[in-house]
């Protein structure tokens, strides 16, 4: 066995690769500097999921930070049984759900506020995109999240089911119900929208 072969055996190929698993492996082995690389790789997707899920731009960075801090503290227990992104998005969705739950609880103790109307002074100059965003934001959390993950992030039903920890059938049903609800909300603008 020559020295080159020996070197290859001591250092498995996977560690030389630049994918998520290799970075995680290095992190587990003590090289914590690779974590910033993981953050850099996935921050956009994570931030976008948070933004779409919450329909809110203000809390995105805070929640994204929380997501990565949780990942950092639990990365050493990662079992390489599924993709890193599946695990990461599950944490992200859970953090979003936590935030929404806390927000709903806080709402109980706040004075009643009028909900923002989906349509306000609709005219020719109205921003159709804004109207649709409002309509999506008006959907219940459990219908909104699978729709945005599918239509905006391009997740498969399988990925959505894993991220939301539910069955594929449930995802399919929720997406359909979400679209029905959305259609109902946008019905007054049917002519304008469907042109």
């Amino acid at each position, binding site marked *: 066995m020559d020295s080159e072969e020996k070197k290859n055996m001591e250092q498995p190929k996977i560690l030389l690769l630049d994918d998520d698993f290799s970075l995680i492996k290095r992190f587990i082995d003590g090289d914590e500097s690779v*974590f910033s690389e993981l953050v850099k790789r996935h*921050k956009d997707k994570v*931030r*976008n999921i948070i933004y779409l899920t919450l329909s809110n731009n203000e809390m995105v960075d805070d929640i994204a930070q929380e997501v990565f*801090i949780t990942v950092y503290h639990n990365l050493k227990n990662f079992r390489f049984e599924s993709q890193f992104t599946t695990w990461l998005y599950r944490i992200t969705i859970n953090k979003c759900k936590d935030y929404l739950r806390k927000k709903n609880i806080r709402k109980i103790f706040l004075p009643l506020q009028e909900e923002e109307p989906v349509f306000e002074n609709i005219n020719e100059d109205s921003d159709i*995109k804004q109207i*649709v965003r409002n309509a999506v934001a008006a959907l219940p959390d459990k219908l909104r999240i699978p729709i945005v993950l599918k239509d905006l992030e391009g997740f498969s039903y399988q990925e959505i089911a894993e991220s939301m920890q539910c069955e594929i059938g449930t995802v399919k049903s929720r*997406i359909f119900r979400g679209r*029905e609800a959305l*259609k109902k909300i946008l019905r007054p603008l049917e002519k304008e929208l469907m042109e």
Partner: protein
Amino acid sequence: MKNFYNDKELLSAYIDGELSQEEKKYIEDKIKSSLELQKVLADLKKLKELTSNSFEKISDSPFFETRVIASINQSPSILFKLKKWSPVLAFLFLTIGLMAILRYSPNLINNLIENQKSNLAGFYKENLQPLLYTADLTNEDLYNFAFYQQLPLDSSRQQLLKLGYDPQGKEFFEIKKVDNPADIKPANNLNKFVSALKLNASEARQIDSIIGSYTEQLSSLVLVNDKNSVAINPSLWNARKALLADIITFAQKHAPVDFRKILPVQEGKFDNNLVSKWVDKTKNSIDSQYIFCTPDSIFKENFVFDINEFKKNINKMEEELKKLNIERNLEKDLKFHFDTNFDKEENIDKQYRQFKVLIDSDFVKVIVNKLDIPEIDLNELNIPDFDSIATIIDKATKNIKIYVPSLPSMPNNSKIFDDENKSGKTKKRNKAEIKIDSLMNLKNVIADSVYKEQLEKLSESFNKQFNFNPDDSLIIKQNNELKKEMDRLRKELQRFREEMKNYENNGKGQKQDNSIEIRIEGVKVIQT
């Protein structure tokens, strides 16, 4: 309809490319044959397109990684995390601790309950006293108990203890409140019984003595206390039977004919010997268990009540009470313990000698030689001078006959101590002689000699003050009487003044100060 609904759901998955080959073929066939499904499909596609195009990617966040790493480095320590979870941890440890304790001493809770029970039992067992003493039961009550099985529980006779037997023949007792006290104690049954049997006085006394002989036994069988608990010994049922048997036996023996009239059903005859044996047995076999009936619960507990000890305590208390009463009576007598060494203090500065104290076993008088009362100018307020009124009242009261108890008889070796006289008249210190008849007069003399001029002035001011106009007053009659009385007083005052002048003239050369020779035997005078 359900199928159509399923078809629409399939269409939704179809546009997402999430159908299996089979499903895809099925739905495509359906779409071809259904215009409605085609419309739905078109709408869904349009909606998906709208949604996809309405959102833009979120703008980039500069230095996000740096901030995340910084946050990680500043993330709270383990201690902080523990603090956050401290309520949960405390609850967890408490649960584990309790589980461990219960694992190794499973009877802990039972023991605690038992302890509490015994504490409660102890509380209700305190100060138990025989009902006979607390409710002040009479022979009549005991007779009623024997025949009617009921005892009044309290002296107000609002509560009743009733013994009885249920249809199965089992004993029961009940404590009940009775609104009408007459219901508790049917009146005069014992006397009716005695007269029905036509018993003579001696036989009636015997009945009384029979009932009386059960007093002690019954005393220790029903106990009550101030905590509203009643302790009943099960032997009470036997005691009642014994008492009843005793009375019936006696009645049968002494008035067989009349007794039969009262109790005609009664067949046969009580055997005296048998009854007395049975009675003795019931007296000697008293159960040590009492049934405690308390406001909280009813329980059976061992309780030893020593009637002899109780009697001893009662006797002791009675004696103490008697003693206390005697002491109280003694204390009613006045006892002033002045320091008799006052008279020995020869060097006390005269300026402090302001009081003259006359004392005897039941008599004390303190005379103030000089009293500094601040003067108040009342002219501005336009109200009468208080002193003027007080003096008139004082003078008026002199003529009112008030019963004054005579002074106690004075022993011959009595002494008079007058410190002020001590320096010049040492001889008279111990054997002073009386020139004035009573202490009342003595007081008047002192007052008059010291404040003679002031009195004169005050009486004049009084005359001015009480210059009444009869027409102004509604109590004309009273005013006239008062006027007459005042005239009489004025005359008397005048006479008194003259007498005083004589007295002063006679006393000149003998006394220059305010001290007076006192000749009261047995009265001790201390002037300080």
